[in-house]
């Protein structure tokens, strides 16, 4: 059952596309993510039979129905727990978890915290559109303060949550960010997440065309994206901007990252930080980058630091070490017994 079969012919996007009609709203960002996944899996050498998509509830959680693999559309917020059970039963399976900002950070916040803390070898994609779509537009834990919605006609007062900061705070060892429209960037992030042994957390900035259109504003707009996205590459300087003349430095006085222009105020390229994926403190600061005026949001792999072994490996190794040493009969008949004749 657990053997990974070698596909005889290379699979294609078609092999991973199920016969179910996709039912997201026309123009929804989810379409692009789905296509990207269907296109990337063959490249990763994935097989249909060993791939499992587990989701919770919400628009994003319909995702598994459209993948011609194994899939489990579970209940609101609980996908991490179900996925953990799948992985414990069969650690050889390639498990992807699909969730959203409401499903993963609100009702399922506890489970997301713990799957990350345990470092279960699962690829977690959180579609962040800053709104509850399926229930018709209420504000979510990632909505900006002041979001007007059916449940907050005067504007929301809840501060918003940063998913990557949440993940890192939960002990995630892999955190990345990409955008639903970044058809070239997204596959690379998926590939890295898939290759990472442990829980890999990916936030996808996604657009809800009906209830929160343009929610990401200039960050994802074609004209401004280059100036508001910092595309991280491990070992490379954090340079961004349409003219590649901007960069990130560490401001010692403020103990914070700061966006600067190379050539201004005596800044040279040598002052720009070099991205080190294994640096947790830097990742924490990168996660929050973008909150300030003119700051870019960090994209790509913010943090990746693989553990020696994954959670399921450790759990199952304990079982394997003991397996067969005693039988049930040994247990029941062992200890203090007596005979009645």
């Amino acid at each position, binding site marked *: 059952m657990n053997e990974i079969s070698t596909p005889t012919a290379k699979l294609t996007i078609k092999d991973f596309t199920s016969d179910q009609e996709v039912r997201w709203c026309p123009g929804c960002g989810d379409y692009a993510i789905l296509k990207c996944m269907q296109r990337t899996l063959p490249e990763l050498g994935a097989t249909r*039979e060993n791939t499992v998509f587990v989701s919770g509830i919400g628009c994003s959680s319909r995702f598994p129905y459209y993948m011609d693999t*194994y899939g489990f559309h579970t209940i609101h917020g609980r996908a*991490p727990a179900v996925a953990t059970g799948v992985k414990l039963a*069969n650690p050889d399976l390639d498990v992807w978890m699909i969730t959203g900002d409401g499903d993963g950070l609100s009702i399922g916040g506890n489970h997301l915290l713990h799957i990350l803390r345990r470092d279960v070898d699962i690829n977690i994609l959180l579609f962040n559109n800053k709104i509850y779509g399926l229930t018709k537009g209420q504000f979510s834990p990632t909505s900006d303060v002041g979001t007007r919605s059916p449940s907050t006609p005067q504007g929301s007062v809840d501060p918003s949550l940063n998913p990557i900061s949440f993940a890192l705070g939960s002990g995630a060892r892999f955190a990345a960010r990409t955008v639903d429209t970044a058809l070239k960037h997204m596959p690379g992030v998926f590939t890295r997440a898939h290759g990472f042994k442990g829980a890999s957390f990916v936030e996808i900035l996604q657009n809800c065309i009906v209830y929160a259109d343009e929610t990401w504003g200039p960050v994802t707009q074609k004209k401004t994206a280059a100036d508001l996205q910092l595309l991280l590459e491990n070992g490379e300087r954090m340079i961004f901007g349409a003219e590649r003349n901007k960069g990130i430095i560490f401001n010692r006085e403020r103990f914070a990252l700061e966006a600067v222009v190379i050539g201004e105020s005596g800044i040279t390229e040598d002052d720009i930080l070099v991205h080190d994926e294994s640096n947790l403190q830097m990742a924490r600061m990168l996660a929050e980058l973008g909150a300030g005026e003119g700051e870019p949001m960090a994209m790509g792999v913010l943090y990746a630091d693989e553990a020696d072994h994954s959670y399921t490996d450790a759990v199952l190794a304990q079982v394997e070490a*003991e397996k067969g040493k005693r039988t049930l009969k040994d247990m029941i008949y062992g200890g203090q017994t007596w005979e009645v004749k």
Partner: protein
Amino acid sequence: MASDIQVLESAVVRFAGDSGDGMQLTGSQFTTSTALSGSDLATFPDFPAEIRAPVGTTFGVSAFQINFGAKAIKTVGDSPDVLVAMNPAALKVNLSNLRSGGLLVVDSGAFSKRNLQKAGYEESPLGTPALDGYQVIDLDISKMTLEAVKKFGLGNKEALRCKNMWTLGMMLWMFSRKREPVTKWLQNKFSKMPQIAESNIAALNAGHAFGETAELSATFKRYQIGATQSEAGTYRTVTGSQALSWGLAQGGELAGLQIILGSYPITPASPILHALSGMKELGVVTFQAEDEIAAICAAIGASFAGSLGITSSSGPGIALKMEAMGLAISTELPLVIVNSQRGGPSTGLPTKTEQSDLYQAVYGRNGDAPVPVISTRSPGDCFEVAIEACRLAVKYMTPVMLLTDGFTANAAEPWKLPDLDALTPFKVRHTGTPVEGESFSPFKRDPKTLARNWAVPGTPGTEHRIGGIEKDFDSGHISYDADNHQKMTDTRIGKIAGIAADIPAQAVEQGETTGKLAVVGWGSTFGPISEAVKMARAEGLDVSHIHIRYLNPFPENLGALLAGYDKIIVPEMNAGQLKTMLRDQFLVDAKPLNKVSGLPFKIQEILDAIRDEITPSQQGGE
């Protein structure tokens, strides 16, 4: 000294002391020694919810009761014959229950002014008329213990901890039980702390020697309780949690599946998590989840991937699992849910027993969401019932609710060990890769059981998607079709109802299959009902005992069987849940006999109810 030995048929001994006095250990060691002597027995650990309540207070009293005898023992006994009270609070809480004329052993060393105050005594009851009517042995056990362990150099506090072993030594002497099993256990438990082991053994021996040599009043007798005439075989004592855990492991083995337990700590269900975590030798995987919901969801995920998922909890935790249970019902995945019931509602009485989750088990969840519900009647019975839960889960592709309770979980009884090789396997075959031209649907059903296919990830050719949205009857794809929902609902209900044909017909435990009165019970009321009916029948009353294991669906013959009695009473440790179900399903005039005090029924309470129903005037001649 030759003390005259009095032969008794049975005796009830209750050890009571402060939570920190080690009464549970004393009781369980007395139990082991008693079991090894071949007596039948039943035990009842009765402890407070607080781990360490303030020392010396009445709410910090912990007790352990054992009923043992040369005859079949089915209950823990209504009233103790012997009460051991290690402090004033223990005396205060337990004295009223001691049978009149019973033996009271107290540690007078613990009857300090401060302890008396904490227990609410203005003056010491020792030597006052308050204890008239009992045989009182007051000994300064604290002082004698300190004396016995002096040479091992323990601090005063640690040395005093040995007084439970001193007491145990004396009680072992009193009931002619062997010390060796306890000595062995102490050596083993404290193998890394020889000083503690030796001190405890010395205290045990000192207590025993005291009984043997001290000049005691004539009332301080030594008792002999013989071995019971049990069925031939190998026996051991077992608690419900232990037997249930072994049963689950055995169920997995018979199904040919790995079992994966998802669980979250909760009283009184945690011992199942602990026991299964200690069964890695059998390939059992346990997962202590972040909460009750994650625990059941992980078990469901495991079942989706081809293992047998199990989750275990108690009432409040089961309530949290209800939505996930609905998912398992809707996706038709096998799952065993164990509920060790406790007093409710809400947090209720965590350490006290109750049977009040029957409605939750049968009627819980949103939508029409039936599951099979089965129950355990005694610690030993848990083994068989756990296997049955696994069998039904995999055969019918359904969650199964197994109801046990705090009393059964913690209580111990001698258990005739089953012949494991004689158990019938129910090997599961996951759906394989379809052959050329064969179509696959995850919801294709076995025409007889209505169980769906179980195709698991990792199998080429059976890739499919399932979820909690209604599924098309044929293809298993999402369906919002009205007629299809009716059909699927009917099918799910029909599948569970059909189990009635696959379970044993309802038997009558005692008495005739028709008559004046049936006492109908379920779960851990088995012992007291059984004894009460036996006594009533010995008085010539026309009464039968029916005990139901399968609560949903009921056995096929149950309705007809109940119709054969003039009257029905249903003793339950709830406000009348089975009573209502019987009335609902069979239109019979079932009368409730309810007790929700957190304590098991006394035989007398049921016997009185039987007598009330069958008045002497109705007991005419032939």
